[in-house]
């Protein structure tokens, strides 16, 4: 995910270390929020279906592109378009993913390797169809509200600590909304998994698909639902980020890689682990890339994750091997 704050970081070059770190943390929290949604989608699919969906980043991209389409279709006040996009884009992407599950994934019997190959195929098909229809331009969606909020910082003066407002230390109401909205959706997913009948069926399938089938759970429909839900979560993350970062047909690569990293660090298939890891990666991505070269940070992160998989395949927080 391209860090939303990198453009802002240029404006604050003269800022002191403390406020600078706070700004980086805030921007990192936005990245982490969207990353958590996307990665939980990937983690659900892996946990329940035991397959790796390489096209996950393209579902994210599709969410952003559809959000632009829906928002520009509705017109009127920015909020109307945004709300319509937040409802329709995840639904459409989820339906498309469920369709892909029934027509393609089911037919390769969810064999782990063949699933990876067909989802690579799906990745190129989705990406290139978007290129053909939506085009190579990057387009923004207008945020429903975007008030600039200046932030205070504490400084020790002659008469003890005092608040002041450093120039450039600010965020927007929309960015705070993204963090809040992601937290609400994640809580909803947790409630769905823990306290509803659907969640019970999903968890039963996760534990033992064959046994669940024996007990009359329609496993095929559970898989289609799970694949759709995972994709819809990615799409929702994209709808949230698209007013900050524009919709582009190649934007799916970074979320895919970062989601992989998060899911692996968090322990494959573990939801709480995934959320913790998303916070960790999102925040440190924000903070590290303020102080180091983003490419170097990515190289180190990628190698680190590969070595985690090699030496600790159950993840840093998980208990089960891949």
């Amino acid at each position, binding site marked *: 995910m391209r860090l939303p704050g990198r453009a802002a970081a240029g404006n604050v070059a003269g800022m002191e270390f403390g406020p600078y770190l706070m700004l980086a943390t805030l921007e990192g929290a936005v990245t982490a929020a969207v990353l958590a949604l996307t990665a939980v989608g990937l983690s659900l699919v892996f946990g329940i279906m035991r397959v*790796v969906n390489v096209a996950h980043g393209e579902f994210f991209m599709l969410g952003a592109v559809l959000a632009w389409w829906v928002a520009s279709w509705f017109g009127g006040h920015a909020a109307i378009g945004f709300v319509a996009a937040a409802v329709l884009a995840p639904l459409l992407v989820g339906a498309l993913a469920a369709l892909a599950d029934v027509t*393609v994934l089911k*037919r*390769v019997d969810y064999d*782990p*390797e*063949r699933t*990876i*190959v*067909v989802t*690579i*195929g*799906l*990745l*190129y*098909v*989705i*990406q*290139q*169809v978007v*290129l*053909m229809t939506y085009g190579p331009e990057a387009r923004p969606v207008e945020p429903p509200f975007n008030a600039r909020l200046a932030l205070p910082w504490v400084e020790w003066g002659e008469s003890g600590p005092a608040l002041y407002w450093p120039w450039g230390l600010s965020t927007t109401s929309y960015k705070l909304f993204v963090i809040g909205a992601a937290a609400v959706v994640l809580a909803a997913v947790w409630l769905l998994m823990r306290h509803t009948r659907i969640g019970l069926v999903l968890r039963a399938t996760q534990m033992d698909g064959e046994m669940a089938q024996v007990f009359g759970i329609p496993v095929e429909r559970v898989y289609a639902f799970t694949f759709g839900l995972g994709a819809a979560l990615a799409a929702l993350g994209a709808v949230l980020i698209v007013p900050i970062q524009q919709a582009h047909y190649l934007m799916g690569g970074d979320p895919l*890689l970062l989601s*992989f990293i998060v899911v*692996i660090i968090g322990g494959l298939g573990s939801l709480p682990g995934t959320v913790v890891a998303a916070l960790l990666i999102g925040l440190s991505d924000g903070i590290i890339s303020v102080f180091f*070269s983003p*490419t*170097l940070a*990515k*190289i180190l992160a*990628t*190698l680190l*994750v*590969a*070595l985690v*998989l*090699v*030496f600790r*395949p159950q993840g840093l927080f998980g208990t089960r091997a*891949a």
Partner: protein
Amino acid sequence: MSDGAKAAVLHGALIAALFALHFVLPAYHHGNLARVMVLATYAMGYNLLFGYTGLLSLGHAMFFAAGMYGMALPVTHLGWAPGPALLSGLAAGALLSLVAGALALRTVGVAFLIVTLMFAQAVYLTVLYFAEWTNADDGLVLQRAERVLWGLDLSDAGVRYLAALVLFSVCLVLSLWLVRRPFGKVLIAIRENEARAEMLGYDVFAHKLGAVVASGTMSAAAGAAYGLLFGYAGASFAGVQYSILPLLWVLLGGAGTVIGPFLGALFTFYLIDITSGFTTAYMAVVGVVLIALTLFAPQGIGGEIRRRVWRGLP
């Protein structure tokens, strides 16, 4: 005729046909076929690991790039001649595959795919990071004078075709030899049933590592040759697309057949060549073919030949 003789005739005929085409093909297809032969060499390297050992790697672009940059960097910055530079490309590929293999082979199944993907991504980012030397996306262009190997000017189309043919033939014969030797038979045994191969007393890890090194080095040879023959080394060759393409070629041509990678590379090259005449979104074709192959013909062209015509196709 014995299976060995039949195999020799079939693959000898392919090489002879490619040599004959050198004299009859129009310039455009002549150039294309030279490229296809180098890419098919890359695919043969991939096939050693995927087709014969049953290990699916999503990071072979790192070996291709290791060969390419292992050759191009000394030529550009140290003024090496193409001969030693080719060897340094091979050495870079062998070393990288030894290290990456020793680490990645500690994992199994899906984790192996992801680890190879991550390693390749790290290599790709490294190429971008050292833009001062690698020129990142713009890449290194090798001048004509830097591409004269033993008095042969590789920028000449005819010489280039024959050089590509030599590389392709050597690797084809090497593959054929390798998979018919006991080493190759053990790899196939590991592919078919790893637990049983281990129980029979074979050192599975050592054989797999040998397969990764052989496969990585052959891919590096293709990368080094590609850079030298076409005078260019760019970061895009290290990207994820160049890890996916050999998988596609091998799947299409028939995994675990010596001739398959060439058929797959040839078919895909012309498919993309024709499609890109109509649309910039030509990679959509790659996606559709990948899905269709996995669904309807997981054995590819070579697999169909083996099923219908000759069961002993190596």
